[in-house]
């Protein structure tokens, strides 16, 4: 039951650079891009997290419906929660939510199997999802985005424009240091990924696979 059923929005731009492939959540993803991935990841790693399952809901009844499914919701727009199992719950507007599973998570599948409640509208999500790691990420963000991430009190969510692409960005703390997660429209994902990889290359970083 590990057949490839999904394709990353970044597939076309990653394929020429990929060395090994693997399958995550039934999506074909790049395992490794080549040697020195650990060093790239420590400096400015651009990883693909599009394989994670995600779901969107909006509507006046969305928050109450999510709460009834056992998913806490952030109190303020432009903020997010990370549940105990790693699931991200982002509030994108007054009544719009994005839920993204942790690797291997099943919450969104369970959510989408439920009939939506009254005034709850499912939002299909086909985002390109990136993960930026490493010590040079603040410099990468300064070069690619006019929003000053240093003013952001972590953990926070912000919607801004990066290399001309509208993105939803949030910062997470991890054992390796701060991690920036990005979501953008899938059709823009290849351009965003390629541009970030090029800028990261000048900073000693670059593309990293899921097994880096």
């Amino acid at each position, binding site marked *: 039951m590990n057949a490839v059923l999904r394709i990353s929005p970044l597939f076309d731009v990653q394929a020429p650079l990929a060395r090994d492939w693997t399958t995550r959540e039934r999506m074909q993803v790049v395992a490794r891009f080549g040697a020195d991935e650990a060093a790239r990841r420590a400096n400015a790693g651009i990883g693909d997290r599009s394989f994670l399952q995600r779901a969107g809901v909006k509507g006046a009844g969305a928050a109450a419906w999510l709460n009834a499914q056992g998913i806490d919701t952030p109190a303020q727009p432009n903020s997010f929660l990370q549940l105990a199992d790693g699931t991200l719950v982002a509030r994108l507007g007054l009544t719009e939510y994005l839920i993204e599973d942790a690797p291997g998570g099943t919450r969104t599948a369970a959510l989408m199997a439920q009939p939506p409640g009254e005034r709850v509208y499912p939002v299909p999500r086909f985002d390109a999802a990136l993960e930026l790691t490493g010590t040079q990420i603040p410099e990468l963000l300064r070069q690619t985005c*006019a929003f000053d991430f240093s003013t952001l009190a972590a953990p926070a969510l912000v919607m801004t424009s990066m290399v001309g692409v509208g993105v939803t960005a949030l910062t997470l703390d991890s054992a390796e240091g701060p991690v920036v997660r990005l979501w953008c429209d899938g059709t823009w994902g290849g351009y965003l990924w390629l541009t970030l990889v090029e800028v990261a290359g000048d900073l000693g970083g670059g593309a990293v696979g899921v097994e880096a």
Partner: protein
Amino acid sequence: MKLMTCPVNGTRPVSEFVYWGEIRPMPDPDACSDDEWAAYVFNRNGAPGVKKEWWCHTPSNTWFIAERDTEKDFVLRTYLYGDDR
């Protein structure tokens, strides 16, 4: 860099926004004259001055109203539709 303040997302570079024109209340098509209707459909006010305009913060798709002095290109204030109090 020009800046614009979104009522929801805060101050951002103007490159994150799109301009959607002056707010132009529609006359009642059943009650107005043909001249009034033609002026509404075809004419735009190009005279500089303080105008209420539609703007949108594109990353979050937040539509709001900006009161802008088009002569000095100075934004007096911005607010969400319905918050004009």
